[in-house]
C-alpha cells in the first residue's frame, strides 16, 4: 500500500512510531548501501583512490622486488603475502573512511540522522565498505599474480583468506571511519586508530595467505580462517553496539 503526500490536506493523523523491526532496518540499510553505490559511481572518489593506490603499489613492488614468484621458498611466499596485505592495508586506509567523511563534508549527515536508525546506517555503510574492500582485494591480487608472477597453489583457500581478511578489515575500520568523520585530522587519525586494531588479523592473514600460495588442503588454513571469523564477529558486534553512541554524539 502506498501513500500520497498533500501539503494542503488537513491530515490529522499523527505519524506512527516507525517500525523498528529487523525487516524495516534491513530495507533502510539496503537503501543506504544503494545510495552510497550510486553516489560512488557518479563521483568515483573512493574507488579511484583505492584502485590508484593498489595499482601504483603493486607496480612499484613488482619493479622494485622483481619476480619473486620464481623463487618458491617459505620466506619468499611469506614476503609475497606480506607485500600483498601491505598494499591492501594502505589502499584500504586511504579509501575506507570516505563513506562517513563524505557525509560529514557534504553536510548530509544531519538529513541521515533525522531519517535513519543508527543500525541501518551502520549496516549500509558496512556493506558499502565491504564491497569496496572485496573489489580492491580482487584487483590487487590479480595484479600481484600477473605482475609478480605469484603462483597460487590453493586458489579456493586463497580466495577464502582474502574474503575473510577483507571482512576483518571492514569490520574494524567502519566504526573508526564513523568516529574520525567528526575530527579535524581525518586521514592521519584513521590510520593511527585503525592500525592497532588491525595488527592481529593482519599477521594471521599474512601467514594464512602465504600457506595458500602452496598447494595445501583447506584444513591447513582453517585455523587462520577461524581466527579471522572470530575477529569479524567480535568487532562487528562491538561496532554495532557502539555505533549508536558515535552516531548521536
Amino acid at each position: 500500500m502506498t501513500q500520497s503526500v498533500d501539503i494542503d490536506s488537513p491530515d490529522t493523523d499523527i505519524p506512527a512510531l516507525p517500525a523498528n523491526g529487523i525487516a524495516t532496518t534491513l530495507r533502510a540499510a539496503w537503501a543506504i548501501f544503494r545510495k552510497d553505490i550510486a553516489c560512488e559511481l557518479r563521483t568515483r572518489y573512493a574507488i579511484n583512490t583505492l584502485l590508484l593506490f593498489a595499482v601504483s603499489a603493486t607496480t612499484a613492488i613488482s619493479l622494485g622486488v622483481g619476480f619473486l614468484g620464481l623463487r618458491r621458498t617459505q620466506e619468499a611466499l611469506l614476503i609475497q603475502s606480506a607485500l600483498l596485505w601491505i598494499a591492501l592495508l594502505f589502499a584500504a586506509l586511504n579509501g575506507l573512511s570516505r563513506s562517513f567523511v563524505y557525509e560529514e563534508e557534504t553536510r548530509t549527515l544531519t538529513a541521515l540522522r533525522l531519517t535513519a536508525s543508527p543500525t541501518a546506517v551502520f549496516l549500509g555503510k558496512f556493506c558499502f565498505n565491504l564491497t569496496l574492500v572485496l573489489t580492491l582485494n580482487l584487483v590487487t591480487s590479480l595484479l600481484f599474480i600477473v605482475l609478480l608472477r605469484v603462483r597460487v597453489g590453493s586458489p579456493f583457500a586463497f580466495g577464502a583468506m582474502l574474503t575473510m581478511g577483507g571482512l576483518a578489515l571492514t569490520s574494524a575500520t567502519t566504526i573508526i571511519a564513523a568516529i574520525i568523520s567528526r575530527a579535524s585530522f581525518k586521514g592521519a587519525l584513521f590510520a593511527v586508530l585503525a592500525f592497532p586494531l588491525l595488527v592481529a588479523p593482519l599477521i594471521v592473514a599474512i601467514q594464512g595467505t602465504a600457506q595458500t600460495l602452496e598447494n595445501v588442503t583447506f584444513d591447513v588454513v582453517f585455523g587462520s580462517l577461524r581466527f579471522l571469523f572470530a575477529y569479524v564477529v567480535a568487532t562487528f558486534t562491538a561496532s554495532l553496539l557502539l555505533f549508536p553512541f558515535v552516531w548521536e554524539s
Partner: protein
Amino acid sequence: MQLYVSQLSAGYNARLILRGISFELHRGEVLVVSGPNGSGKSTLLRILAGLQVPAGGTVYYTVGQQQFAPRNARHLVGWVAPDLSLYRELSGIENLRFFAQVRGLSVSDTALYELLDLVGLGQRGNDRLAAYSSGMTQRLRYAFALLHRPAVLLLDEPTVTLDERGTAFVDRIITAQRQRGLTVIATNDPRELRYADLLLKLAIE
C-alpha cells in the same frame, strides 16, 4: 499534540547561549523565535529536532498519552534549515525516494512527483541537485520535510533564498500545518513575525 519546554539551557563548550527558556505549544499554534545572529535560534530548533542535547532543562512532545524526548520524536518532525544538505549527486526524485525508504515509508513515485510539483520542482525532479539553484534546493528541503506528513514542522529561516512564489508556497505550508500539528519558525525577517501565535525573542547575553 503538544510541545513542552521548561528551563531549557544550551550552548557550546562552556558557553551557554540559551538560558531558562520555557514555553508550551499546542496543536495548531505557530511559535516564531526571533533574535540577532548568535542568540541561539538555530540551536533551539536543533534541540527540538533531537539533533542536539541541551545542557539542562526539560523538552518533550506529548502525543495522546505518550511523551517523546526530541531524540525519540524524529518521526514526528519535519526540519527545514539552511544547513540541511541533501545529496548533490542524486536527483531530486532520487533524494526523496531514498529518504522515504530509510524512513520506512511506502510512497509511490507518482506521489513523490506530486510532492515535487507541489514545491514547484515538477519539471526539474530528474535533475541532479548539483544543477539546482539555492532557491530550488530550499524547495527540495520542503519536500524532504513534508515527505512523512510531520506533526511538527521546524523551519529555520523559512523563506531564505525563495522568490515571491516560493514565499507564497511557504504561507500555504504553514497554514496547512496549523491543522496538522505545530510549527516553530526561527527567523530574522520581520515579515515572518506575522505567522506567530507565540513570539519568543532571544537576546545575546
